[in-house]
């Protein structure tokens, strides 16, 4: 006690600055001590947790493999016993997560009849019920995880519960719902997109297209409702489908979309008209050329590069002096092909050195 008293007396006699430094040092030391103890506890907890996960993982992996390799056409008593054991395990969230992760780990790596057996085990062990409970969660990421799980195990029966999340305010959830419908119902459910109000990002669209292209049956239903959707991103997605599946039948809808309010859509339409070689659209595009945006004009000139005819000459001459360099260059290149004499005569007529340089370039390339 007297030693402590001496320390406090000595501390009181110290100058204020030294007292502050000692106090701060003492507080920091205590904080570090608390943090070290906290980290030690956390590390021990995580290690124990990991060991428990490994133990259960090994146990369930053996159950799964035994289930898959039990020789029987119909469900054997051994398989029934495994299902019953799993049914008990999945009541516990911790164990349930391990079971699901094991089933998924294997399902993603193998193909063939075993995949069906894994799927059957998922259903028989009662995991569908828990995935459906996730869909009712207040946390969006749990809902998204639930939908993804249902997609991965191909649970078609959850259709009605998933559909209500198509316009979920969180794009991650709506994307999972869209992938669920496309992955499980293929082209049948494509029409649902026409009513989707949320925007499909480019990444969402790429993912949907990737899923669609994996199916054996590539017969596309009528996508007119999608092309006429009020959702711009849905129209863009439908246009991508038109291009990928070469939907020449959509010609009339594409012509209507040339007057779409979005410039990006109009440009995309011109690119698809070019891809599908719909030359009937040229006259409309020529008429609207002057009132179009520069991006649309460039898209049309690119189209003209592939679809030019002798009849296009007056249009080309009209746009020889376009302000955009690329358009001007393309016009000269096309003109050189369809009427070389006219092209050569330009050199004499035009006195601007820059223009003459362009003509020389086109002439020599």
């Amino acid at each position, binding site marked *: 006690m007297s030693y402590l008293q001496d320390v406090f007396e000595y501390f009181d006699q110290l100058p204020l600055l030294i007292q502050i430094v000692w106090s701060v040092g003492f507080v920091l030391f205590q904080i570090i001590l608390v943090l070290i103890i906290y980290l030690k506890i956390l590390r021990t907890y995580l290690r124990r947790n990991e060991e428990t996960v490994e133990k259960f993982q090994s146990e369930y*992996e053996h159950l*799964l*493999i035994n289930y898959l390799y039990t020789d029987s056409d119909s469900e054997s008593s051994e398989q029934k016993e495994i299902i019953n054991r799993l049914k008990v395990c999945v009541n516990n969230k911790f164990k349930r997560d391990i079971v699901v992760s*094991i089933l998924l780990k*294997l399902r993603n*790596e*193998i193909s*063939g009849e*075993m*995949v069906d057996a894994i799927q059957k085990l998922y259903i028989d062990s009662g995991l569908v019920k828990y995935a459906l409970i996730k869909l009712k969660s207040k946390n969006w990421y749990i809902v998204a995880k639930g939908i993804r799980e249902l997609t991965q195990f191909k649970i078609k029966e959850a259709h009605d519960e998933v559909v209500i999340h198509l316009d979920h305010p969180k794009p991650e959830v709506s994307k999972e719902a869209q992938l669920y419908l496309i992955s499980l119902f293929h082209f049948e459910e494509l029409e649902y997109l026409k009513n989707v109000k949320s925007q499909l990002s480019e990444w969402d669209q790429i993912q949907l297209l990737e899923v669609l292209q994996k199916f054996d049956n590539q017969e596309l239903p009528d996508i007119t409702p999608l092309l006429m959707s009020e959702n711009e991103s849905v129209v863009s997605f439908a246009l991508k489908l038109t291009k990928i599946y070469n939907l020449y039948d959509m010609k009339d809808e594409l012509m209507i979309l040339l007057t779409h309010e979005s410039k990006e859509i109009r440009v995309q339409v011109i690119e698809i008209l070019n891809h599908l070689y719909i030359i009937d659209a040229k006259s409309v595009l020529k008429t609207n050329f002057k009132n179009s945006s520069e991006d649309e004009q460039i898209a049309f000139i690119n189209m003209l590069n592939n679809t030019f005819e002798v009849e296009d000459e007056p249009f080309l001459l009209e746009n020889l002096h376009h302000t955009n360099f690329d358009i001007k260059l393309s016009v000269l290149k096309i003109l050189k092909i369809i009427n070389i004499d006219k092209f050569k005569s330009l050199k004499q007529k035009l006195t601007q050195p820059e223009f003459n340089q362009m003509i020389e370039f086109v002439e020599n390339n």
Partner: protein
Amino acid sequence: MTKKKIVLAEDNSTLSLLLKFKLEKEGYQLFIAKDGKEAIELIEANEPQLILTDIMMPFISGLEVISHVRNKLNLEIPIVVFSAAGQEEMVLKAFNLGANDFMGKPFSPNELLIRVKRLLG
């Protein structure tokens, strides 16, 4: 008759167990490694007649395992690599390093068994 030895290098423990079960049922002796480092140790210790290896693994990749077997241990034993979608370039590298066959994931265990039987004669 002694069983033919196979080293399986695969970081997915469930898949390893499934393949072990399948191949042992057919009379092979399986040594399982969960990464490339363990695979090299098992190959050096057990002198297997076949190696099955995933390309992407912790510590040492499947490509390094192939390179070690062909260039350092100078073994001519058949090597089958497992690859996932999008690893086409890796597969080409594996063949350049001396792999004999490949299987793209997801694959059928029955198909793997046929290939193993063919390679081990």
